[in-house]
């Protein structure tokens, strides 16, 4: 089971975990990304390449399923205007054993960071906006999965 969702609305991690728990594995790992409210941030605007996003995410999920023995993968990524505390992204993985679930979960979020066509613009209380630049740290995190 591989499912990829690109959506404006929020999602319920608990319901997604229940689906992953039902596929018969011994372990379900998840990561949920949330808008941090730092430095007077009032909005995080996520722009994406609508025609490309789902297929790019699907490719990332397929890559994980080739590399680890996974029973289920759910990726959800939101776009649009978010506020601090909002969920941005969900990665959930089910596998027979925990190592595959935990490693592939880390892989999936690292690759979404650097390979899913999203861009983030911060807007602050004073009206100033700023496009988030990719962090060298994120490139390093993604690079550790290169074979």
């Amino acid at each position, binding site marked *: 089971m591989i499912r990829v969702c690109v959506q404006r609305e929020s999602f319920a991690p608990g319901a997604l975990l229940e689906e992953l728990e039902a596929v018969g594995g011994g372990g379900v790992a998840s990561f949920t990304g949330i808008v941090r409210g730092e430095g007077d941030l009032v909005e995080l605007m996520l722009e994406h390449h609508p025609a*490309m996003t789902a297929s790019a995410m699907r490719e990332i999920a397929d890559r994980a399923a080739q590399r680890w023995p996974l029973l289920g993968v759910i990726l959800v990524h939101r776009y649009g205007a978010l506020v601090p505390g909002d969920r941005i992204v969900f990665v959930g993985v089910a596998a027979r054993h925990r190592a595959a679930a935990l490693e592939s979960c880390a892989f999936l979020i690292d690759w979404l960071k650097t390979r899913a066509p999203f861009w983030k613009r911060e807007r602050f209380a004073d009206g100033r906006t700023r496009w988030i630049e*990719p962090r060298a740290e994120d490139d390093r995190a993604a690079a550790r999965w290169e074979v």
Partner: protein
Amino acid sequence: MAIEMLYFAWVRERIGLDREMIDPPDEVATVADLIAWLAMRSPGHAEALADPERLRAAIDQSFAGMEASIGKAREVALFPPVTGG
């Protein structure tokens, strides 16, 4: 051959368009050529495309390098490095 250009994030903001149809001459063969050619269209294009090292591209919804051929492309997207997740 007409190509639909898509622009995202600050590339879109600086150009002032999220998309446009273009018809580059034959000598525009690669993504890098296309960026250089597009930069001459307006001051906004020039500003957005001034530093190709800060740009990334997708051809027909697949990421492509600067030396990729745009020969049969129907759609080319230009944007800053992605920040998903």
